[in-house]
């Protein structure tokens, strides 16, 4: 076993107080503030195995996301869930621990859909291996996917195997003037026609769409959808993904609202930016309606609301769980990290 992992095992066993896992420190704003001694995961880095014809890459947690994506791009491949970096230093470990996905999520799948296997350092210093490097593997519980988005509360995700996909042959961004309702209806229609739409973003009366695929498939879709071609499409989607778009500027709290794609407009007082064909809605503010009322309304529509950036006093970052689910969460935490060493409280108090 690698020396770094051995040192980490010793450190975890010796730890008497909580450890705060941190890679490139690009996403520490996400989730509840985490206390504990900083535990830097960047030393364990690099691609372990990458065979383009297998569509699988395995890399260590400290691997910079940018480096991993560049290695894939050299072979015409990509992380199809288009993870946000939120900073130059973003690492693979942080990407999987936060489980965040970018604009392509609604068409290609989320981070969790592409995780095939993981190596985990648990709270007792054991090295555990789940899943593998093959697409189909139903041996054992799917702990690898359980870890995606667990915010490091179940252990240190040391290695990850991911399914990768070929880069699309071509991408074109179209923009159309539409209100929110019209945009939902039009999107549902075009997707129902199997148009190769890989991303959507509605903001301020404009629906932006990205078409991805073979040139031959994009031409008829462009004709069907119409609108104006946005020349700087690549930059536009990068700005949406990295939250550098104008909408994300300023100090107002940022809410991420996850809803059924066709849920009616929330008509909240703050500005709204809508991605993922309607399933991910970003909202600024919410002072007038109040966090509890917002969450109740979103829950009634079948979704949940996350206070994504900026803290509000007394407001928890993630929507509360039902008592039955709380029990399972607490027991899973105890199963992997019985002493509560890793990132305590980062997701929910007491977890």
């Amino acid at each position, binding site marked *: 076993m690698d020396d770094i992992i051995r040192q980490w095992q010793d450190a975890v066993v010796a730890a008497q107080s909580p450890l705060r896992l941190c890679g490139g420190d690009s996403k520490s704003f996400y989730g509840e503030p985490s206390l504990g001694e900083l535990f830097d995961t960047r030393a364990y880095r690099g691609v372990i195995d990458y065979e383009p014809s*297998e569509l*699988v890459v395995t890399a260590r947690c400290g691997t910079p996301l940018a480096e991993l994506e560049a290695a894939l791009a050299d072979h015409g491949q990509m992380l199809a869930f288009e993870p946000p970096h939120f900073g130059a230093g973003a690492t693979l470990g942080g990407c999987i621990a936060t489980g965040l996905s970018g604009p392509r999520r609604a068409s290609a799948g*989320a981070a969790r859909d592409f995780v095939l296997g993981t190596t985990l350092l648990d709270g007792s210093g054991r090295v*555990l291996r789940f899943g593998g490097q093959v697409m189909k593997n*139903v041996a054992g519980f799917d702990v690898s996917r359980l870890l995606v988005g667990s915010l490091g509360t179940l252990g240190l995700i040391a290695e990850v195997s991911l399914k990768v996909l070929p880069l699309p042959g071509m991408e074109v961004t179209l923009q159309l003037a539409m209100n929110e309702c019209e945009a939902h209806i039009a999107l549902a229609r075009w997707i129902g026609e199997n148009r190769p739409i890989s991303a959507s973003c509605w903001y301020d009366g404009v629906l932006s769409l990205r078409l991805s695929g073979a040139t031959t498939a994009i031409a008829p879709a462009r004709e069907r959808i119409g609108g104006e071609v946005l020349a700087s499409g690549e930059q536009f989607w990068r700005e949406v993904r990295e939250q550098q778009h104008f909408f994300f500027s300023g100090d107002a709290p940022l809410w991420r609202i996850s809803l059924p794609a066709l849920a009616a407009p929330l008509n909240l007082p703050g500005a709204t930016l809508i991605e993922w064909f309607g399933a991910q809605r970003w909202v600024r503010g919410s002072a007038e309606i109040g966090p509890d009322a917002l969450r109740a309304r979103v829950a009634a529509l079948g979704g949940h609301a996350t206070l994504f950036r900026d803290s509000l006093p007394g407001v928890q970052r993630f929507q509360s769980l039902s008592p*039955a*689910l709380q029990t399972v969460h607490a027991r899973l935490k105890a199963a*992997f990290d019985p002493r509560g060493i890793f990132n305590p409280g980062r997701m929910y108090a007491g977890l």
Partner: protein
Amino acid sequence: MIQQHHDPRFAAVDGAAVLAALRPCVAADALLHTTEEMRPYECDGLAAFRQLPLAVVLPANEAEVQAVVRTCHQLGVPVVARGAGTGLSGGAMPHPHGVVLSLAKMKSILSIDPAARMAVVQPGVRNLAISEAAAEYGLYYAPDPSSQIACSIGGNVAENSGGVHCLKYGLTVNNVLRLRVVNIDGEIMEIGSGGLDAAGYDLLALMIGSEGLLGIVTEVTVRLLPRPQKAQVILASFDDVQKAGDAVASIIAAGIVPAGLEMMDKPTTAAVEPFVNAGYDLDAEAILLCESDGTEEEVAADIAAMTAVLEKAGAKQIRVSRDEAERLKFWAGRKAAFPAVGRISPDYYCMDGTIPRKRLGEMLKAIAAMESKYRLRCCNVFHAGDGNLHPLILFDANVPGEFERTEAFGTEILELSVKLGGSITGEHGVGVEKIDAMCSQFDADSLAAFHRVKTAFDPDGLLNPGKAVPTLHRCAEFGRMHVHGGQLSHPDLPRF
């Protein structure tokens, strides 16, 4: 007939008391307890493993499921959930001191939302019935296990079922949005959401493929996809198995994600051709089926690109399906591979290992050597796109010693799958069949972690005990699917 040895801790279960307690939970005709009534439930698709339970209950709704589970929990009685019973790893095999909870009566499609492309269904709904109901909206449910005309969505969730289109469309875990689950306390857990994610841990992923060990699924929300306008398949033959394997890698490396990518070796095509008359090249050492689906334009582009790759890879014959009838004919042989092999041999064992695609040549060479070593023949069918190999070991159970040699042969294949970086099961599940093989894939610490996960949901270990995850002191030898005289318990179903 093989009976499983069970945990002695349930030996004290009082059968009469259990029946009395279950009686108020369900309608009178939904509680079966005589041997005759329970006989159809004694095994699933893995017919060699049989066991009569204490009782079989068929709740009609979620409230009845809750009542049954609560009762069993109170009395400390094992609960084995069962869908259509088509599984191939004995996951639904009854427990001698337990209750089989069949979801067969809960078979309503609750809603289809064509605009949102989602369906909400009860667990007993057949996989294919979802696609049939969605067809009028031009939609379908993508995962298509070979048993899809009979298998239920609840069973698909338990096994994380795949099919021949997984590479492009994913497994069950990639196509289910939300579950309602009754936990061992009889409470409802809503897992997932109407959106694309939910707060907290990804319990949806954990629940899917958990083989009935974590909870009882009572409602499933699935994602539907618009049916592709067109599908077309290429049938290519090769004079060398390694060349065919390399051709698969070249297709992927060329940036194509085929809708299906299947391989059969010469002994398999020889077995199936007389059975289906698909027009396979019988001189070929291997044949490949490469399918594309999508719009007319996408399919035309993919077929042209794949044809070019296959030619360059040295295919000796390439045929492209000219119409839907021919496409289905090309597929017919692949889908009939299992029954066809069942006709040429009194018995066969089906393995379900996955390997990284690049190791295929190595694996096939090793299997050829094992054929000599064990003096048994083996036919190989391969979900080449996702590395899932189904070697069918031919034997005759009536010849003394052949069964033992077959077991050793299969053991060696599974051990090699793990050694090559793969898995002991790609899609059939662990169940009772591969429980010992789990020991070669996972170390003791990881297996112990699985047990802790199980305990987080089911502290008393009542849900499908003895399946899927071996106890640490059990790790000894492997098991596998044993088919006698081609007799699966659902001989009418295609198996691929």
